[in-house]
């Protein structure tokens, strides 16, 4: 099996076309949403929210309801719970995150086991992109359009509240509302990435392509494009390897993203380790 057969299947079978479209969409919206997660220093929070989606998914399955309702509910409850614990005790926020999200995740594991007939825990945790059906594809595309629309419409507000939250608040932006809106976005992104990367590894799709992009540019708009590109390359590579070698798609996607990051970490013209080690300065330093 190889590239030729992959292309042959892609041209002739609907399931592969659905998987490809879904992979591309996941790469794009994870890269774009992830850029703001990276710049706001919310990687740990992103990890927590994505894990906390699990009990919501399980409950939705059991009730036969749309996955999104349950996922957004438990995702947001977790975000609020983390905020409540850290603000009302001496517990610092990283510990609060660890406590609340692992509890939510554990509950999710038990609930999913209970609802086993409906789904497969392994696929939810680590993704199986080849099981994407047409309805899943449309749902993922819908989330993609929503995420991109949100970022395009509120680009200015996201920029200023990420870069200088004090000024944003000073001129009257509701910075807390923006924070929780991003949390909602995160839960949507997680649910939409379920079948591709899975709950456990989705944080890598949020953080890794965006970080790679961050090492390569000094402009937010360029960073968003690059992050989307690296996200797509990773998720399409994941699809290819999982089909050709029968590997878990989530794990492959995350490793490809990590390899891209490692390359940027070493070779980035301005921020790479290599040039710094060699004592070279690519272009400009501090000018006095």
């Amino acid at each position: 099996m190889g590239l030729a057969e992959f292309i042959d299947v892609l041209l002739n079978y609907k399931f592969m076309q659905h998987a490809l479209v879904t992979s591309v969409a996941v790469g794009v919206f994870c890269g774009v949403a992830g850029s703001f997660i990276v710049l706001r220093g919310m990687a740990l929070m992103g990890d927590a929210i994505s894990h906390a989606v699990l009990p919501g998914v399980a409950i939705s399955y059991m009730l036969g309801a749309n996955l999104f309702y349950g996922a957004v509910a438990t995702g947001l409850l977790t975000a609020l719970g983390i905020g409540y614990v850290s603000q009302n005790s001496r517990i610092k926020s990283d510990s609060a995150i660890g406590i609340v999200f692992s509890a939510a995740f554990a509950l999710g594991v038990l609930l999913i086991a209970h609802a086993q007939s409906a789904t497969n825990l392994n696929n939810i945790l680590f993704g199986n992109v080849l099981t994407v059906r047409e309805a899943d594809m449309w749902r993922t595309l819908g989330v993609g359009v929503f995420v991109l629309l949100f970022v395009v419409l509120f680009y200015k507000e996201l920029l200023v509240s990420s870069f200088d939250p004090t000024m944003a608040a000073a001129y009257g932006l509701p910075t807390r509302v923006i924070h929780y809106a991003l949390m909602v976005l995160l839960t949507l992104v997680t649910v939409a990435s379920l079948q591709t990367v899975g709950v456990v590894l989705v944080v890598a799709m949020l953080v890794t392509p965006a970080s790679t992009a961050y090492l390569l540019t000094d402009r937010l708009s360029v960073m968003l494009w690059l992050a989307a590109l690296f996200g797509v390359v990773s998720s399409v590579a994941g699809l290819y390897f999982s089909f050709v070698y029968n590997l878990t798609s989530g794990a492959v996607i995350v490793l490809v993203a990590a390899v891209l990051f490692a390359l940027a970490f070493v070779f980035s013209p301005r921020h790479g380790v290599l040039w710094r080690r060699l004592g070279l300065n690519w272009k400009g330093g501090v000018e006095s």
Partner: protein
Amino acid sequence: MSAAVEVRDLTVAYEGNIVLDRVTFSVGEGALVGIVGPNGAGKSTLLKAILGLIPRTRGSVQFFGRDLDQVRRGIAYMPQRSDIDWDFPITVLETVLIGTYPRLGWLRRPGKREVAKAYEALERVGMEKYAHRQIRRLSGGQQQRMFIARALAQDPVLLFLDEPFAGVDAGSERTILSILKELRDEGKTALIIHHDLAKVREHFDEALLLNRSLYGHGPAGEMVTRDRVAELFDIPILQQAEVTA
């Protein structure tokens, strides 16, 4: 005529600790007001509490006789250097452009007019040739001039500046001071946290002496004297070089 800023009985407490204690003062239009006091005196807290960025335990603040929400778009705030993520992927021009956001409101994007305004502000602080540079790759003085340009792009009536002269070279300091004086002469009011007492005395109109509560408020020349400053900083003998009364 109502004062530009009127602060009454402003008290801020964190978990039972009083950080600001019943601060009352008012500042008229067209004044450069220096806020001085030792470390931990609550200077930044005062600015943030006035702007509603941290909750007030007690007290009220009015601007031109109105509430904060009616004037906030015309209030420029310059954060302390340490509050800024200098690695953020943003250029000098984009940073200055943020100054036009408050008056744009939601959804509207900065257009040609806003970009022209940002360039104009950059020219005024002598920074136009650095427009497309990432903000980390500037000197300390250039970084502070950039934030002054951002404040200018906002067309502010009031300015709240947290240590704008920290880490600034002599040239940048002169530029920033002359712009502040121009703004003052146009009738704008600026509250400026400053660590250099001699400079406050020399260049500012009024001084607020703060150490959790207000120790004094009046013309800078009368406020920044040996005795008052010794009392404010709680040191019995002040070193000669610091202030010559």
